[in-house]
């Protein structure tokens, strides 16, 4: 591949913990192979150089403020392909938990009575949004944090001119393959039946339950889920509350 045909990649972050960008660094030695396949032109967390001339934009984080909406729109205009990286960018993730409150309630809770006037840095949207709540997204790399192997797969597919695809089946499929004891059998809640697979059921495989960080492919109100819950004597209300950690709907979930 000649130098010119390398796709130019830029990585940006909005409201997030930057853990998904860290997961890119956590690919360790293989990052060198990826850097040879693409040209990284902007990645503020690890490089000083910056360019607005890029083919692929990778966005981490949720969109919180009108000023971030404007920055995102510019990135969308510059990029041929836009990828949402991680739960905050793909579905809003934990940041959506704040959508249970009004702006006034939020400021009172976190900053006390201090007024911030018309300072644009504090001008937040009524609701925290995922990237596709503002601009169209071409591809998603879900998870909190992203899975390092899935990130590699998506970037390699794009370099080969292919369309990367995500699993369309739930986490239960991977969990069964790993021969785990079903979390429901232990009398605990699990979002595995309704959450998109691709993480190799990492949480249930480590003695926890699925928390739905890769986004829901079915609603927990789904009849099959209700049946599972009633079989194990578990409360449906509790299940929807657990959904909120990464998939909170808003003020009705307060």
């Amino acid at each position, binding site marked *: 591949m000649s130098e010119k045909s390398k796709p130019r990649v830029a990585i940006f972050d909005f409201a997030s913990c*930057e853990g998904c960008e860290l997961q890119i660094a956590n690919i360790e030695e293989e990052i*060198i192979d990826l850097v040879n396949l693409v040209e990284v032109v902007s990645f503020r*967390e690890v490089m000083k*150089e910056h360019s607005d001339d890029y083919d692929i934009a990778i966005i981490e984080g949720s969109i919180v403020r009108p000023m971030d909406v404007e920055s995102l729109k510019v990135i969308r205009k510059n990029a041929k392909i836009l990828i949402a990286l991680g739960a905050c960018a793909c579905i809003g993730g934990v940041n959506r938990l704040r959508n249970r409150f009004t702006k006034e309630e939020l400021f009172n809770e976190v900053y006390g009575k201090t007024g911030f006037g018309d300072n644009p840095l*504090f001008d937040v949207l009524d609701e925290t949004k995922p990237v596709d709540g503002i601009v169209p997204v071409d591809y998603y790399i879900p998870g909190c*944090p992203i899975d390092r192997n899935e990130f590699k797969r998506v970037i390699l597919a794009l370099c080969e001119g292919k369309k990367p695809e995500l699993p369309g089946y739930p986490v239960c499929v991977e969990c069964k393959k790993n021969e785990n004891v079903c979390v429901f059998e232990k009398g605990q809640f699990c979002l595995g039946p309704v959450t998109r697979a691709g993480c190799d059921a990492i949480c249930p495989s480590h*003695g926890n339950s699925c928390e739905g960080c890769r986004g829901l492919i079915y609603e927990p109100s789904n009849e099959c889920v209700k049946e599972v819950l009633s079989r194990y004597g578990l409360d449906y209300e509790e299940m929807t509350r657990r959904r909120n950690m990464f998939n909170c709907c808003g003020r009705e979930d307060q």
Partner: protein
Amino acid sequence: MNGKVSTDRTVSVHHLTRVEGHGNIHLDAKNGEIKRLEWEVPEAPRFFEAMLKGQHYSDVAHISSRICGICSIGHTLTSLKATESAFGIPVSEQTTALRRLAINGENMQSHVLHIGYLAAPDFFGVGSVFPLIGSKHNDTVIKIIKLHRLANEMSDLVCGRTVHPINMVPGGFTEYPSRKKLEDLLLRLPDAQDTLKEIAAAIKEISGAILDFSRETEYVALSTKGDYALYDGELTSSDTGVHDGDYLDFVEEYFVPQSTAKYSRHARESLMVGALARFNINGNSLNAAGMKMANFMDLKLPCHNPFMNTVAQMAEVAHNIEDCIVQVRTLLEKGVERETLPRIIPKAGRGVGVVEVPRGILIHDYTYDDVGRCKKANLIIPTNQNHGNIQKDMESLVPTILDRPEKEIELLLEMLVRAYDPCISCSTHYLDVRFV
């Protein structure tokens, strides 16, 4: 400047690179007089204290872990300690040993990331680690990655995942490292110490890049008798000694007049937390490997040069590796047993957790209701505590370098901020935002 000597200098760094989160630097000097000098933080607010409101205690650590991807293990441990203290949940010796291993792993991961990927490019005179790949420094880059990999694999082993740990819950662990994997780790740790020495030697060769600058401040860290405190200890100040009361009586958060800035202070106008503060408070308790690295890098007690924070991190990595060897040996001698998690009975009340995380003292303070839902959360983040000190360092440094070219001043100010390894994305409060 056209080569003409002038004392007018303008530096404006929008979204400083190679730090976690977003920060700006502004300097405006006319005829040698500083008109404006600001460290400004425009990070998007995330409202974590509100996000935690109403959450069940079993979810609180997993939510608060998401404050920071770089120190998610530290946030998880601090959160668990707060919840355990609120409900009086006992923790076994084995759990404490595994948690110490986890905190060592995270400290190594975070410090190596900072030393190798964020700070070192300045020493090598490049904009990022990428141009070093395939250069004459390629060997050093490969060694940095190797050490970073080991730190992450250790955290993966103990915590289930290095970013946003899975295995750690109130009262203990849900999954345990196997004997075989701990034995493999023990074999690799001495080699990691050699790798670190080689990286240190390469950095020392070019460490003329570390500026000789000194400003004494108040250093704050946890301390405990006979140990280099990370997982546990008492709040300790270089000015006032050990503080055994509530942290709220220790740290004073305040707003600067005519601005929305929130600063922390205690005995004087600003304070410093993190590796250099820990070294200044606990340096004599470093283990042999940590001491050796400090000596090799010419880091001596007391050290008042904030640029040396990166070097203090190197001494800590050496200390961490040696401490891991001790912890893993102990775990192997005793044998890691699958423990039954304690039965948790929630009760209304408050619990505070305090841990030394890579960038300094982290405090989580929760108030729970009688069914175990979080009513109120207060989170004090290390970087919040350092912002005031960064500003004061800038005010002290700039007059001494004002005769230098703008590009050089800009680089030195960037290096100063980077030396603190700020983690601005951790912001749960709005940090030190000042407006002129």
